[in-house]
């Protein structure tokens, strides 16, 4: 940011702070690079960069925002003042952040994602060669492959928050590498995918031969997969499925912006048992290396973990500024925006079940007849009704404590959230998180991670 623009933004925030209980500016930019190679097609293109400023004013009753891409200092100042001239101080709920500190204090802090190799320092041909190599290695593994598409995506974002006595700056970096494999035989088509990702640098960009081999083998094995007979099953979930269950059940379910709207059943269950004893769950934006990590949220709240479930009891929802203002609750570091042009909501970061003590193999060994559910593909929340929809790419039959090799394709989990979580009978000793994207309903997409250990539960599958 130029010194002149910095001075103008600082002056504008100060002016607004003198008129209203709260004012702040968030300057954010995001971008990245995406490379794909399917053998027949190659693409290397920027992830559409965004850059904008959003000014926020709490007038005493309503949060007002002006978001713009304008960067010229004079034009920015006049547009912001024109917008602010229409605002009036009003009476309403008091703010909960504990004081009306102004930016005069200027508590300046800078943060950056730790990384061994800055992706910006790696030449593009080297990245292209990496993707080509993954594509070539994978496509050579089986003649039934009709498409092996390798992907590399790097994301970078810079955010500056000015308000509440703070001037915070963070530079975030994330990498995802992945492989999508489509197979065909005798009129059947199936696919499988594998992705690795996290917060960090180019050092994360690697897929081993074993991982490629396993991805292709499963895509081929899925050609013989059938749909599962709907019913209630003893189910072991892999960390990706466990993570999506955590995310949909008591991630979205405890987003506190829904509480004052009367849209979250969890509002009436704080302090009550909602899962089996021993089940702990967290949302932690400060988790090193996780894809949903940040140092402060889009409302200037410094990242810290929130324990959502403790020993099966709902102890703390996640919140943003507005939800604590209208609903009076603990402010956590979860106020997040899709980008400068969208509102902040209470959103997840890295959401996961904490590991337990049972080895995953032992979990399967104790199932007489059930399903090992793997590779989560999607999920949907129902914060009011506490229904759940989680989809897995496939499940594998368990008989007499062993996997039989029989696969079921496109397996959905549905049910009532407390029934599902209270049916958990074993918590794995492992822990893995997957990079993903999350919407609020069907919009407001942000980067998150979900995960956990293997879990054993009773689940309705179909």
């Amino acid at each position, binding site marked *: 940011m130029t010194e002149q623009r910095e001075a103008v933004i600082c002056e504008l925030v100060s002016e607004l702070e003198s008129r209203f209980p709260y004012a702040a500016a968030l300057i954010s930019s995001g971008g990245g690079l995406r490379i794909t190679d399917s053998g027949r097609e190659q693409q290397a293109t920027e992830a559409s960069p965004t850059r904008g400023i959003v000014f926020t004013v709490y007038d005493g009753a309503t949060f007002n925002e002006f978001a713009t891409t304008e960067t010229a200092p004079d034009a920015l100042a006049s547009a912001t003042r024109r917008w602010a001239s229409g605002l009036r101080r009003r009476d309403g709920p008091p703010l909960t952040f504990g004081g009306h500190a102004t930016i005069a204090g200027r508590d300046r802090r800078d943060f950056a994602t730790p990384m061994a190799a800055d992706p910006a320092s790696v030449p593009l041909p080297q990245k292209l060669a990496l993707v080509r190599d993954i594509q070539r290695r994978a496509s050579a593994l089986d003649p039934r492959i009709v498409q092996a598409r390798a992907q590399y995506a790097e994301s970078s974002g810079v955010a500056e928050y000015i308000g509440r006595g703070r001037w915070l700056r963070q530079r975030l970096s994330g990498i995802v590498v992945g492989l999508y494999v489509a197979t065909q035989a005798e009129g059947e088509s199936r696919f499988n995918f594998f992705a690795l990702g996290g917060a960090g640098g180019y050092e994360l960009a690697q897929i081993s031969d074993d991982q490629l081999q396993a991805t292709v083998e499963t895509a081929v094995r899925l050609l013989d997969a059938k749909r599962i007979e709907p019913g209630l099953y003893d189910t072991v979930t892999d960390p990706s499925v466990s993570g999506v269950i955590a995310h949909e059940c008591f991630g979205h379910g405890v987003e506190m912006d829904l509480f004052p709207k009367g*849209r979250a059943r969890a509002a*009436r269950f704080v302090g009550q048992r909602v899962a089996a004893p021993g089940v702990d769950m967290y949302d932690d934006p400060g988790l090193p290396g996780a894809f949903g990590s940040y140092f402060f949220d889009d409302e200037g709240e410094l990242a810290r973990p929130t324990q959502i479930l403790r020993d099966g009891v709902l102890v703390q929802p996640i919140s943003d500024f507005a939800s604590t203002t209208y609903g009076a609750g603990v402010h956590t570091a979860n106020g997040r925006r899709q980008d400068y042009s969208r509102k902040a909501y209470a959103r997840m970061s890295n959401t996961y079940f904490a590991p337990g003590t049972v080895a995953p193999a032992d979990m399967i060994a104790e199932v007489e007849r059930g399903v090992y559910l793997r590779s989560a593909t999607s999920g949907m929340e*129902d914060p009011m009704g506490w229904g759940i929809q989680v989809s897995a790419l496939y499940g594998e039959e368990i008989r007499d404590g062993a996997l039989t090799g029989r696969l079921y394709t496109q397996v959905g989990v549905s049910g009532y959230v407390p029934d599902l979580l209270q049916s958990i009978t074993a918590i794995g000793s492992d822990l893995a998180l997957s990079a993903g994207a999350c919407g609020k309903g069907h919009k407001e997409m942000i980067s998150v991670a979900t995960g956990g250990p293997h879990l054993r539960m009773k689940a309705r599958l179909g």
Partner: protein
Amino acid sequence: MPHDETYDHLAATASRLASAAGAMPGVDAWQTLATRRDEAHVYLIGEDIEEARRTVAGESAEVTLHNLHAPHAPTGEQSGAALGSTTLTLLAEDQGDPVRLSARLREGALMASLTDNQPYTLPGAPASGFPVVACEDIGLNVSLVAAADQLGARLRAAVRMAPGVRLGSAEIYAGRAQHTLTNSQGLTASKRETTAFLDLALIAGEGDATAEFHAELRRRRLSDLHVERVIAAYGAYALHALHATPPDAWEGPVIVSGEAAAHLFNPPTTGDTPFVAHASAESAYRRLSKFQVGELVTPEEPRGDRLTLVSDALRPYGVRTAPFDRDGVPARAVTLIADGVFRQPWANARYAQYLGVAATGEIGNLTVSCGATPLERLRSVEHGPLYEIVAFSWFHPDPVTGDFSAEIRLGYLHDRSGVRPIKGGSLVGNLLAAFGDARFSAEPFSDGVYYGPAAIRFATLTITGG
């Protein structure tokens, strides 16, 4: 296209970028897209609280650069030159500084030179021009904030008239955008569009006995949101959800109606459902399509109504209505599937040339031909009970296989004793196979993209018990 300040400004941006791209060594073809967006957002909590209001104004410019070169790794398929392409989004500071703009374009040209694809040619200006289409609400050409406020007031009034329900929350977006597209084939085109969006949650009941109905509606015009009608219908759904019980396990006839029927073709998030995915030239080029021109799209000869699906970018005020697509291909209506038989793929400029088929433009609004059976007849329980699904949590089928498993957010059991609301469990099946035995209602429904039967009765689908 009326000449206004925004038009002139975007045209100047496009012209500046075009000159820079055309002069850049290593750029064999280019396209620019300059966009201006303005939006007003109003967020409501319940009856009383205006949580937030936002004003958004922004400009963006994209430049796509193409480079022809000798293939880096020649394959058996590719002879001659290879084409590489990349798209840059240029921020204001990139555009305003010639040195910086030049550096960004040079970087893009280098990026394009490193990838190998089959060459294709950008579309030129169409001889007969672009079609005149309706995709603009003149009511949104004045004050977006006032328009959003008025909709909020109508919404609250409508909720007050709805018995037994209250507003949980609402998000109202009113927006307009203007785009100017140019390319190295001499094409120059502009379009304006408006958007009206409503995210709505209605709540019925109190305390532990509470249920909601949530929906996201996107249209071109505010009036097409039909607020009063929507509140009445969704209010009834919220009340029904209050008394809904889990369904029994079921294999038999299932009706999918209203927005749930629309979601079979037009999913609520990005990504295509199987009929749209398999009907694309892109899927065919990637060898992922199961459809063959002249052959059935269902695995077996249809026993019920036969599916006819049209991609229509001309439909007045459709959400995907536009005079041209991202590449400048003129809008048109194309029959993809007629009487259950695949007729032609939808194809953007690139994949049309790859396959040697007509460029239809990107997928447009989806029109499905209605049937001859009245809705009430579809719901007849003369031959036994049936389930009707009106809302899924998220209908998200596998686009390759068509397999789906979608949680039921709200539905009904129709039997001789009457109609009982249900909630929970999942509807399970294969979409391509299901259309092999289906009946379409005579009554239509539209969600802004989909226009087709208000209800589709499938002979046999599975419901996992709740």
